[in-house]
């Protein structure tokens, strides 16, 4: 867990000049970091801050705003159980409690074998099929407790590979853009508006 690797840093350096202000590359670079390690480590935050001429806390402030950037290592499968209003009315809280009991961890924690991280999430926009959960951001809808148990068993046994990719990085954002499709500003970046400090 560390700073960006040489390869990641090279990718970062091609991303930064796409924006008029280097700061705009912050979220893409956080994706690069998460794609590298599976989470965004403090060292990676410090490295990104150096690359963008920001302070580490500015990077942390943005990073921590987004739930999909992980500030701690997570398991192979990140399970997010919705407890927002529709799911709540149709047993979301009970589903979460069942998952906690089944996996032996509280929401927010990771199982000792590193297989599952359980999260209590806000609405994931599947209200018509409540209660629901996500595994590595793939949806499982209208879930009974038995179906949830079966899902966990399958995942542990590696039987759902077609539906749920193993969490390598969580992030799959296309960062490599062919140079002919760049906006034409090259390594210098776009001009900074007058009166602004880059």
């Amino acid at each position, binding site marked *: 867990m560390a700073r960006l690797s040489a390869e990641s840093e090279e990718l970062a350096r091609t991303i930064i000049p796409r924006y008029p202000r280097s700061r705009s590359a912050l979220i893409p670079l956080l994706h690069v970091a998460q794609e590298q390690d599976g989470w965004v480590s403090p060292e990676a935050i410090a490295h990104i801050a150096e690359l963008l001429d920001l302070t580490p806390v*500015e990077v942390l402030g943005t990073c*921590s*705003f987004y739930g999909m950037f992980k500030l701690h290592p997570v398991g192979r499968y990140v399970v997010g159980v919705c407890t927002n209003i529709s799911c709540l009315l149709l047993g979301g809280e009970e589903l979460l409690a069942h998952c906690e009991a089944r996996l032996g961890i509280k929401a927010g924690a990771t199982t000792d074998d590193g297989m599952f991280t359980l999260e209590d999430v806000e609405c994931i926009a599947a209200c018509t099929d409540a209660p629901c959960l996500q595994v590595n951001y793939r949806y499982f809808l209208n879930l009974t407790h038995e179906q949830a148990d079966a899902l966990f068993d399958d995942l542990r046994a590696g039987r759902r590979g077609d539906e749920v990719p193993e969490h390598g990085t969580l992030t799959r954002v296309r960062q490599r853009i062919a140079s002919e499709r760049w906006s034409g500003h090259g390594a210098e970046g776009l001009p900074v508006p007058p009166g602004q*400090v880059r």
Partner: protein
Amino acid sequence: MADSEQATKETLTVTLDGKEIEAEPGELVIAAAERNGVYIPRFCYHPRMRSVGMCRMCIVEIDSGRGPALQPSCMVPVSEGMTVTTESALTKKAQDGVLEFLLINHPLDCPVCDKGGECPLQDQTLAFGPGESRFVEEKRHFEKPIAISELVYLDRERCVLCDRCTRFAKEVAGDPLISFIDRGNHTQVNTFPDDPFSSYFSGNTVQLCPVGALLARPYRFRARPWDLDQVESTCTSCAFGCRVALQSSANRLVRKLGVDVDPVNWGWLCDKGRFDFEATNSDDRLGGPLVRSRAPGAAGDGAGELAPGTWSEAWDRVVEGIARARLRPGRESIAVLGGARLTNEDAYAWSKLARSVLGTDSVDAQLGDGLPAEVVVGLPRASIDAACGADTVLLLAPDVKEELPVLYLRLRQAVVERGLQVVEVSPVATAMTPYTAVSLRYRPGEAASVVRAVLSGDQATGTDGPADERRRAGELLRAGSLVCVLGRPSLAESAQPVAAAAASVLDALPEVTFLSALRRANVHGALDMGLAPGVLPGRVSLEEGRRWFADAWGSLPSGPGLDAHGILTGAAEGRVACLVLLGADPLADFPDRSLARRALAGAGFVLAVDGFLTASARRADVVLPAAVYGEKGGTTTNLEGRVSRLHQKITPPGTARTDWMIAAELAWRLGGDLGFTSEDEVWDEIERLAPSHHGLTRARLASAEGFDGLLAGGVPEAGDRDAPPTMSQADSPGVLGAMRHTKDDSLATTGMGHDRHPDPQSGSEPAGAPPGLAAAEGAASAGGSGYADGGTPQEVRGDGDAVQASVATETDQGGSDAFRPSGGGADHGSAQRPSPLRWSGGGATAPTPPPLDRYSLRLVSARKLYDDGTLVQRSPSLAPLAPGPRIRLNPGDLSPLGVGTGTKLQVTSGQGRVVLVAVADAGVPQGSALVTFNQPGPGAADLIDSDGAVTEVRIETLGGAGGATS
């Protein structure tokens, strides 16, 4: 001015609570309402920062033509015909709701919170809140206060997430080391782990905080607001002259708060200025005179021990020492060093004492660390506003962030917000470098040649750096209005090259004006009062003012005396029979410690007048205890020549006295009479005699006009019309009106900047001040002083002509007695008021530095904000922040030694040898070495040769087989 404003600005008519008011275009509703006496509650809004609409407290009903709607008044600019209702039932309900929400997670631990009693959240809850909360759930919990820096504690439970501190850190200070972290109900302000909020301006966030979430370590649990008593004053930690409210409890200073004055500090302070009042409270203060016992058989001179004595013993020894010195011939037999710590009144008294009673012109308030006095006094001056409002600033100064931190804030703001172009010419990179248009490096000793090359467009001159940068700099200097910020960039080179550079600028661009960047507290006031060789009070030369002051004072020395370097050299050679140290510590502050040491040993009789027993005072024969900051009134002068008032807040310890009293008594004991018996009389004499201060009467200084301070010497005050649209909304320029500051509510800094507090006693009058401050505000409007203690009515003097006339009637009293004082009635009938000194660079030639030697590095030395100085080291909160001595080298100079950052290196110059920790720093050009000045332990002063044009050093690694030479 009112007429021209009418001509240039249209005003808009807005209906506010049923009354028609005039508002300026672009003005925010909240500001327009406040200007018209309607206080809209708020937490996040601050007139010196961008509005963000975070807290929603200021929502009122606004109708811009499409029907009334609740809108945050800090985000909506006024428009023609707008109707604003601040007291409708709907507004009230909304405010109730917002406060109930803000209090959901607030712990209500007011009884143990330092903010209790001056807390905007408390006050506004009482005035505008619902009275009861319906929230019964568990509040959120955080670890109680965490230290986010050495000086600031953060209690996240109390935080209402108004974004004031984080906005300040990013927008104003440029140190975004705190930020919102997490989201929604979990949002908190915090630092990055292990990356503390170590900003020089962190204390401002404590003052800005509308709740008790941010607390300053020096004040925490020290006092309750209702126990505090305060006076208006001016900070003298550096020469910038920030206006402050100085607060005490039980005769101890406990807090300094920034007061918003438009021409100077905008309410901000640096942490050194904010917290160095601790030194005044220090146990190290001198409370009585110290007299060196006479060793048997020796004639004094440091033989015995310094021991407490009485004032009369001390005076006897002083009179004896001076009497002996008077027998010695030579212009340097008596010399006075120092004076920047003094008030203007103190400095004038000592200047008059030295000239008319001691008969010496060898006086110098600078300790070889500034610029020649005639340069500082004689160059055409610019105000701070003029510098920040210019098209281009030429920065020929040390790192302003280290030496004049709030000037850094003002210049940085001008660069970021209005596109000021800064051309920097400096020996090493500074904190301003990232904000400059062009930053040129010069090798120590070669400042003048770089500036000349820039001005002449001559690309061939032998300086490093890309030619196109120099061309760009030359274009910028000629592009429009230009102000040169002029100081001493490095103590390790002579001041002459800088003076010569200034002369070249003045020669090539005669319209240029100068803003001095000398840092020492009241050094500009001391120079204005004549504490410099060849300069008399009121910025006149000894020759020009001879007739005028000889008439007034009785006698003057026959010719100019010596400056600090000359005095110390003379003392080292045994030619100074009496050396007076006026709050001066040459062992710490003179660039060349070896010379200072030899001078103190070689001087005949040494008298120190100081608040502390400094290293130099320890070597004196007599030490007289002086009152220091907070213990005396008077006036001080900042770097632009602005005279503003100080006030006494607490009583000095023991029998310590103010410096002017010591001067007056010494004169009397020597058979003279300085002719004044109070501070006020001293100022009246200054106003009457000093040409640059003519017209700055006490009445004016005490008036509302004088609250901001008054510029001496006829320097024009930048009018509001020309002022830049500071901190404008991104898309609505000219919210200047929103931050125009009303003098009589500045006291509200106790709570929230200069916002007014609501009066919880009378909900119907939310614009009223809190009860404790009402009296002060009353005094402000009546007496114009603005502060509770300042209400003593000053006699209002007539205009200048009347004063002249009264003087002219007393023509017969002037005499030729050598010790004849001016008294109140000197004869000015025969002398013309002298004209001020003008320096145009005559005779300013830069000494030629020695040829480059490839085995040596040229030494650069400059200060850090926290150093080994008297005030910092006597302030327990600040002392640990001094970073310690370091040598900073270009990586290209360091790596050939095979070492890196953190290695100890032996540094040798012609003066001495010290061991310093190395730091690789790309901001130092190759061939130069930067050693911080006056840090605890051995350092730059042991290396610098004050006789040479530059100081060269050699670097060696320690240990091993003799170490490699560079």
